[in-house]
């Protein structure tokens, strides 16, 4: 196990990410508020550069109490990273696809220490 320095905390803006390269390994480190999350830059669908895609809120169907649809809504608290190759979306906090719990990103532990963000890799 070793630590890799990614960036200072103030170098990663809220709802943004830094994608670093360590040898053949690419890791995206995301910031949501004061929390940081690290995922491998490799989409489980077909190997796309998932962490280099757009960050967008989850979309839900806007149903009323009578089950009638009124279109779409964004969910501010569910922030997704979207693979730029084919559009697979994953919750940045959990790394899980919204419609398939078996589709998951490969994650790494993140350490925040003395104003620096680090990831732990094998």
């Amino acid at each position, binding site marked *: 196990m*070793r630590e*890799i*320095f*990614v960036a200072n905390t103030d170098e990663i803006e809220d709802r943004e990410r*830094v*994608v*670093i*390269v*360590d040898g*053949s390994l*690419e890791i995206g480190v995301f910031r949501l508020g004061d929390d940081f999350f690290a995922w491998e*830059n*490799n989409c489980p669908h*077909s*190997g*796309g*550069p998932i*962490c*280099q*895609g*757009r960050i*967008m809120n989850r979309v839900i169907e806007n149903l009323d109490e009578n089950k009638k649809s009124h279109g779409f809504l964004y969910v501010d608290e569910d922030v997704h990273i*979207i693979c*730029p*190759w*084919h*559009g697979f*979306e994953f919750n940045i906090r959990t790394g899980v696809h919204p419609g398939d719990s078996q589709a998951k990103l490969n994650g790494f532990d993140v350490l925040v220490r003395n104003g620096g963000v680090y990831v732990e890799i094998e």
Partner: protein
Amino acid sequence: MDESGQKKKSLDIINARTDSRDILSHARQQANARDFDDVFIVDIDSHIDDISAWPEIMDFIEDPVIRDAAGSFSGGTKRGAFHNGTPGLQWQNVWGRIPHGQGLKEDVDDKTIPREVTLSRRAMDQMGLDYQVVFPNALLYIGMHPVKEMEIHLAKAYNRWLVEHVLPVDQRVKGLLYLPINSPEAAEETVRKYAGAPGVAGFTITSSRHAPIHSNQYMKLYAMLEEADQALAFHAAPNWEDEYPSQLNRFISVHALTFVLCNLVHLTNWVINGLPERFPKLRTLWIESGLAWLAFITQRLDNEYLMRSSEAPLLKRLPSEYISEMFFTTQPMERTNMNLLEATMDAVNAPTQLVYASDWPHWDFDLPSSVWDLPFLDESAKRNILGYNAANLFNLEVPEKYQKRAHAAE
């Protein structure tokens, strides 16, 4: 910083203007990991870029009045002139989620060769391809153009532009020329003019059209193709205007159904009307309907044919037997259920009848790894699907380095 105190290299966010070599950097990694430079790979369907070239293509229109009229579009730029595209083409990028889904907007510095060739080379190099067939987005819909003769004007211009301007630049780029079958005579002229021309791999009928392909008016065309030993491809496209699809409210639904529906109709007409018996040497290829529909149509037609064979008297075998002798592209390969995919591939003789297609840069493109990583195919079948089946189908020359490899294996 790493252990040496150096800050790590970082990667940029991918947007609509990102260089496709960067978008596809992981494709290159996959190619390296699988040694694709030692695998003969033909991509028989890509849609690299005709948006920026469209004004240039308009200059190849023969009719002086129509050619002049093209200049009246888009503030005189000719961009999008005469297009009759449905909303589907503009919705490919999933509302901005897939940047390249609206076409490749990257910079190309080398102005000495067509931009399409440069973009094709970038894709081929990253994916590990030996040949790539390019086909224009805009032509996918013109079979439904309200001005019937517009199909002929645009097809003639595109075919000439491709043959004269693009294909001579790089022998790895190939074309499946557009047949404007709203006029059988114009389609026949296209075959007469271009069959065997350098870089021309075969001919395409776009499937989004209301033209029964078994109609007697097309028999001469098919006879010419068979005689000239040219493959005939049917390329699917979305359709949101027909009565049934018009009930669909989301593009996911339109894409899932209508890319299959058009080819279901044409393939059914092709088989039930006995075209494989009439033209037994004419090789047909069905493009971009995926594979799952084949499990349905082979079973459905066999089941019904056995009860109603008098309505298909030209058939001497089960419909599925004719279908299993046709060619199909792999893309977009439905691979969420490997058992169903394996059964489907078995039903259509995948090792000899499937050909790889990327559909790059569309949102549902497939890389060669989509075939190479399948757990149930042996390596020989994978190599056939990725390249050798296409070489047989289109009479493509297999590069010498692979021929040496084949001899070594013997």
